[in-house]
């Protein structure tokens, strides 16, 4: 692939085409949904957090471009097994580093959508989770 397609390097396409954390989540304790109407991106993130505060599982659903969906998958991968406190401090810069590519101002919004959803999910109990 030509160097100019850097935005779509292997790892991003890998996460986009074969996401490991996409789909419904049984027994979710936390949930949030966020959209970017400008792009038509729409992400729901569900977390299962143990009593100790460890994130046991994270899964997302929704639609979006390769950048936003790959970010969601990579972010889910990064926080599983971590404590809530560690997930809370993930920054937009960390997301950029995970993607490993420079993004234009316009596309940066695609990349940080997943982070917005994560921050909200950490504060919002899933409906019917009872905890």
């Amino acid at each position: 692939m030509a160097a100019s397609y850097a935005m779509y390097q292997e790892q991003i396409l890998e996460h986009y085409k074969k996401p490991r954390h996409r789909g419904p989540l049984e027994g979710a304790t936390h949930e949030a949904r966020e959209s970017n109407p400008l792009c038509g991106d729409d992400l729901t993130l569900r977390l299962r957090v143990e009593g100790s505060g460890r994130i046991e599982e994270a899964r997302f659903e929704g639609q979006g471009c390769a950048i936003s969906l790959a970010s969601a998958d990579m972010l889910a991968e990064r926080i599983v097994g971590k404590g809530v406190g560690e997930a809370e401090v993930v920054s937009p810069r960390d997301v950029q580093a995970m993607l490993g590519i420079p993004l234009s101002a316009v596309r940066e919004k695609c990349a940080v959508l997943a982070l917005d959803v994560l921050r909200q999910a950490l504060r919002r109990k899933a409906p019917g989770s009872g905890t």
Partner: protein
Amino acid sequence: MARASNLPLQVPSIKRDFPIFERTIHDKPLVYLDSAATSQKPRAVIDAEADFYGRYNANVHRAIYELGEEATREYEGARERIAGFVRAKSPNEIVFTKSTTEAINLVAYGIGVKGRIREGDEIVGTVLEHHSNHVPWHFVKEHRGAVLKYVDIDDDGRLRMEAYDELLTKRTKIVTVAHASNVLGTINDVREIAKRAHEVGAVCVVDAAQSVPHLPVDVQALGCDYLAFSGHKMLGPTGIGVLYGREDVLAETEPLLGGGEMIREVHLGTSTWTDVPFRFEGGTPNIAGAIGLGAAVDYLAKLGMDAVRRHEIELTAYALEALGGLDGVRVYGPRDAKARSGVVSFTMEAAHPHDIASILDVEGVCIRSGHHCAQPLMERLNVPATARASFYVYNDIEDTDRLVAGLRKVHEVFA
């Protein structure tokens, strides 16, 4: 199928009039397919603006010196040429605004929010409008209790004209419609819609942002009351738009902006307004923009709007066929190129519109992706976003070939 040699416009020589085509994008020649968002500018327009600032810059209308007279003459000359371009009866029917959006807001305010609309009065729009022809009417609903109703589209992306039978009643006060859809390209039958509006005593407001740049528009033949368009989509500068209003309806429209330029007399606590159209142009206008738009109109008139229209039909027909032949590509809007303006929206199974646009950008091809400021239409089509290629006088068959080659690359990356 169309070939470069028999296109109505001589694209190679037109391209030489547009300095931007001298540059490259990522080391590739620029293919600009986003004129529905904003058009490129010919040197004549750029020079006209610079000439105003460099040679005869002065405020218009009241300066008692040569520079001011020259500025006023050119500003009003532009108004006359624009009136002629859309076949208005008089330059007094042409109001300069900053954009189509401001023009529609002027009408929504001038006959709606501050005008004669009462609670329960109805405004009939359509599902295919740009946000600029939705939101101003939301204001009228909020402030006056107006009821908003919408005409739907059929599977071919055309308005269900029979819906007007049911929706238009004596409660209808305003009927508003886009002359051409910025997403589907659909050219709507404004003449018929205006006639139907008048039958129930309503006024007809037309968003012509996507039609005046691309096809011959005759406001008298259309029979509409108001018609709004933007300079920057028709080779002119940004920051200048036009509201056409028939003289009698403008006289009954309240001004949006109070201030200098628009008054006859001002006393402490009260004021009276000057004549149409100046009462709608409060504040120092965009003089350079209006003069630039005058130059754009001259340029288009020289090409001939009939030729511009035929050129775009050829390009659109070619693009519809080329894109329709690609695997996993879905094209929206009327299948007949003659029923649409030079706008082709599409989606690809394998890739989100943003990703399509990013890959095409690397290939030097500029297209738009997203909701195109038409979220209600996106909802109606049940898509989050589309990619959109749009054509103008400087596009040729090769541009579509470059687009198609780019889409094959998108397929390679994502499939």
